[in-house]
């Protein structure tokens, strides 16, 4: 198998101010399904096109934002290998037992330089609905809402992203697909562990552990248009789009969940191979990199986070 070790994003856990409003939004509008509610009140969701137990975890809290992002590894022994490498790098690793989240195997966790908690796991139960594996239809349960196919990636904000770049590439075997370099240093990085243009990205920001957005994969540009219709029909708070990113080439809309966490629907994006060079952007053209059609950042891009 050519792709091994860290395979892809597994799930993200975010904080919401109003749980019923959040469940309504992520199920009816984004198009996810609620898998279950855990004994501690956390709610687990997924797309019908995903096999694993959940890809989105909601926790009721008094502030919005991110609790953690987890990545799936190929085999259980990867967790031991990565624990050794992370520990040798100098970050403390803790252990979360199988079953702490319904359907999830054991996890290891650590806090990176930007203040975010990252977890790795190798095992997940399958939960319904999921694609059939024998004579599969293109969908088993009819897609609804924005027809999101999976939790795709997250963009996180925090300090010391140079250290994040070093850590993710040296320790977790990610590669840097694209980066923005300003005259005063590195502004942003897009990191991939597989063949997507990005699985996680970081922008430099003075406050640690901030969330810019969580992104959901859509099938096509046409589905991005359909998502825009849903945003207006249900008066969902919009940030920008539909538009396109120069960076990754994804077709996109940014908007906000009922607690103010930014969401993205994302279609396309190029295929990344590990031998490809890092694509770079400079101060003069970064606006086009972020929003390809507007050719400049909006006021909210660097300042509005949860």
């Amino acid at each position, binding site marked *: 198998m050519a792709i091994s070790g860290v395979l892809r994003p597994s799930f993200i856990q975010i904080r919401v*101010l*109003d749980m019923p409003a959040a469940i309504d939004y992520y199920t009816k509008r984004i198009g996810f399904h609620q898998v279950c509610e855990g004994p501690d009140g956390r709610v687990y969701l997924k797309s019908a096109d995903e096999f694993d137990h959940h890809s989105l975890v909601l926790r009721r809290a*008094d*502030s*919005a*934002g991110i609790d953690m992002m987890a990545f799936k590894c190929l085999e259980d022994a990867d967790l031991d290998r990565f624990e050794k490498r992370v520990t040798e790098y100098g970050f403390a690793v803790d252990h979360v037992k199988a079953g702490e989240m319904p359907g999830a195997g054991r996890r290891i966790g650590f806090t990176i330089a930007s203040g975010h908690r990252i977890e790795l796991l190798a095992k997940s139960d399958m939960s319904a609905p999921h694609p059939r594996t024998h004579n599969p239809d293109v969908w088993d349960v009819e897609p609804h809402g924005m027809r999101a196919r999976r939790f795709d990636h997250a963009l996180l*904000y925090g300090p010391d992203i140079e250290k994040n770049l070093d850590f993710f590439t040296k320790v977790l075997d990610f590669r840097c697909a694209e980066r923005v370099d*300003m*005259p*005063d240093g590195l*502004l942003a990085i897009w990191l991939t562990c597989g063949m997507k243009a990005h699985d996680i990205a970081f*922008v*430099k*920001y*003075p*406050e640690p552990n901030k969330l810019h957005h969580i992104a959901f994969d859509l099938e096509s540009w046409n589905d991005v248009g359909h998502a825009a219709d849903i945003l207006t029909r249900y008066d969902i*708070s919009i*940030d920008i789009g539909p538009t396109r990113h120069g960076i990754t080439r994804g077709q996109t809309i940014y908007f*906000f*969940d*009922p*607690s*103010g*966490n*930014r969401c993205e629907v994302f279609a396309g994006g190029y295929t990344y191979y590990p031998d490809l060079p890092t694509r770079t952007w400079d*101060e*003069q053209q970064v*606006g086009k990199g972020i929003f390809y059609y507007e050719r*400049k*950042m*909006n*006021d*909210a*891009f*660097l*300042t*509005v*986070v*949860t």
Partner: protein
Amino acid sequence: MAPRRFQITLEGHGVASAYENERVLVALERAQGFGQLKNMPRRLPVGCRRGGCGICRVRVESGEYRADAMSRAHVTPHDEAEGVVLSCCIYPLSDLSLRLETPVAVKAKGERALQPV
């Protein structure tokens, strides 16, 4: 050869960088995108519109309103008792008089994501 880069000072508002091969206005637009221009003719601070990001904090000087849940990272119970709220999360029950308040996150940081270069 790379174009030469200059500093454009917009009096009272900040410093932008501009390259010799571009219109100054385009550089100023980019600087505004980077948050390098301060105190521009007042534009309404709009963020998530759902109580999470804290950009739209206001002090209600007078009047009655009702409020949705808003992030405690941006509005403490003490704030709320004093009438400091997120304007995206309040609904008027009478005429209101409001004053824009510095977002907590910016106040605490004492700096923006990017300083003028």
